[in-house]
C-alpha cells in the first residue's frame, strides 16, 4: 500500500494506493492516528486508487472515524471505487462512515463543517 498526504483548505487528504488488507492495515492505522491528532483535525481518505479493501481495512477506518468523533475532529472517506463501495455495503459499514463521492465534494463539505 502506497500513500500521499496533502492538505487542501485545511483538510488533510490522505490518498491511498493499492489494496488495504491485514498486511497493510496497521500501516494505515499509524498514518491515520498521526493525522487525527487534535479536535481541529479534518482528515479525508481518498480511496479512488484502492482496488479492494477487506474487513481489517474497514476496521481501521471505522476506528479512525470513532476516534475522530470522540475528539471532536472530522473524518471522512472519498471516492471509493465500485468494488470498495460494494464492500462497505456488504459489511453494512457504509452507514457508519461519512463517504463522499469525490475528494472535491468531501473537502468542500469538511471545510464548511
Amino acid at each position, binding site marked *: 500500500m502506497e500513500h500521499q498526504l496533502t492538505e487542501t483548505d485545511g483538510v488533510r487528504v490522505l490518498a491511498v494506493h493499492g489494496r488495504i488488507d*491485514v498486511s497493510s492495515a496497521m500501516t494505515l492505522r499509524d498514518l491515520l492516528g498521526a493525522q487525527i491528532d487534535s479536535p481541529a483535525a479534518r482528515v479525508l481518505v481518498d480511496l479512488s486508487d484502492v482496488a*479492494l479493501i*477487506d474487513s481489517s481495512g474497514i476496521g481501521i477506518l471505522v476506528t479512525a472515524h470513532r476516534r475522530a468523533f470522540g475528539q471532536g475532529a472530522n473524518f471522512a472517506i472519498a471516492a471509493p471505487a465500485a468494488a470498495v463501495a460494494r464492500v462497505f455495503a*456488504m459489511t*453494512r*459499514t457504509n*452507514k*457508519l462512515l461519512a463517504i463522499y463521492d469525490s475528494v472535491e465534494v468531501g473537502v468542500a463539505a469538511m471545510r464548511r463543517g
Partner: protein
Amino acid sequence: MATLSERPDAYLYVAEPGGRRLHLEHTKARPAADPTRMAPGPLMQTLEGGAEWSVPTPPFEVALGPADHHPRVVTSPVGRLYSFPVVDAAGELTGLVQAGPALGDDLPAAVARSYAERADEISLVLAVTRREEELRSRLASATAQVEAGRRLAGSAVDVERLVALLLDLGLSSTRSDAGFVAISGEGRDGLTVRAASGMPDGFAATVDLSPDSGLFDWSAADGGALFLRDVEAADAIGIRSLLAVPLLTEDGQPLGVFALVNFGTGEPLDEQSLDLLEAFAEQIRLMLNNARLFGTFADRYLTTVEGLARALDARRPESVGHHDLVSDVAAAIAREAGLDEEEVDAARVAGLVHDVGLAASSDGGWEFDVEHPSVGASLIGHLPLHPGVAGAVAAHHEWFDGWGFPQGSRGEDIPLVGRVLATAEFLVEMATPDAVRPGRPAARLTDELRQRRGSQFDPRMADAAVRLLDQDALALPAAPLTGRET
C-alpha cells in the same frame, strides 16, 4: 427315510425367541384338486356355498406345549400329522416338522427312524433360516435407523453439513485459501464457528468471537455493521486478508458471519469474487434463517403438544400429572439402564407426550385406543427431535415378547427408548391410585417387574427400574405400604 419323505404334506414351524409360540415358516402341500385329498365335510360345503371347497390350511401359529418336545401324532385342520421336534446343538427346541397325512393314531417306528436320520439336517436348515430371519430383522432395524437419521438430518445436522458444503464451494469458486462460518446464539451472546476450512488447527475452538472484545466488531445497534476489530490477532495467525460479511434476518437480527480468508497463497479477492461471496452468503443466510424459524416453530409446536397431553391428564382426577410423572420416571430408568444423555432426554420428552394420541379419540373406544401410540407418534414425527422420541411414543405399548400393540413388535425391534417408556408408564399406572384401587406399593411394583421381565418388559429396563425402586429413587405417587389391592 423313504417313509417320512413319502408324506405328501409337510409343514415347518419355527419357534420365536423365548420359545412360547411357533410360526408357520414353510409349507409343502398337495394342490386342491389332488384326488388323494380327503373330501370336504358337510360344514365346509355349507361355508363355501356348496359349489367349491377350499384347501384346508394349517394354523399359522401354534402354542408350544410340553408334548411338542417328543415325536407324536397331532390333529390339525389339515388332518392328522406326524409331529417331530427340531432341536439345536444346545438342546433347545427351535421348531417343529409336521408331515402327513398320518396313517393312524400311533407313530410308526419306521417313520420315527426316518425322521431321526434327517433330524440333524433339518436342524441345520432351520438354524440357517432363523439366522436369515435375524439378519432380515437387523437390516430392517438398520434401515429404520438410517431413515430416522435422515429425519434428524432435516434439522441441525443437515444445516451444519450444508453450511460446510457452501463454505467449500465458496472457497473454491473465489480461490480463497480458507474461510469459516460462525453462527450467533439465540441470545446474541457471541459467535460460534460452525464450519471452517483451511483455518489453522484449533482455530474454531480458540478464536475469540465475543461481541465486546473478539476478532470482530459487530453490533445490531450499528445496523449489523461488521468489521475486523483485532488486526493483530489476524496477523498473528498469518492472515493476509479477511473479508467477512454479516448474515442477518429480514428484520436485521444477527444470524452469523461468513468469512473468506487468504494466507497469501490464494488469489486476491476481486470484484468477481464479491459476486460469488454475496451469492454464497445469501444461500447460507437463507439456510440459517429457515433453520431458526423451523426450530422456533418446532419448539412451540412441541410445547403445544405437551400442553395437550397435560390437558388430557386433567380430564380425570387420578391422572393429573400423569405425563410429567412418566417423563421423570422414564428419564430415571433410561439413565439407570445406561442410555446416553441424548436418549435419556428423548425418554424425558417422549414421556411428556406419550399418550397425546388419545386426544384424537372422541369416545375413548377400544378400537381407536389401540392406535393411540401411532397417532401420537404421527403428531410429532415431523419435528426435528431425537428419533427416539417418536419411536418411543409409537412403541410404548409394545411388549418385549411381541404381545403388545399396535405393531406386535418384539425384542430389539422395539425402539430402545420405547422399551424404557413402556416400563415407566407401567410403573406410574400401577403406583397411581384410582377410583377402584389404591396405588401399588414399591414392593408390589418390584414383584410385577420381575414377573413381567422378558415378557412385557425388556429385562434391561425392568432390572434398572427394580434397582431404582430398591433405592427409593423414583418419583412415584405416594402409595400406602399396606392397603387393599385389586
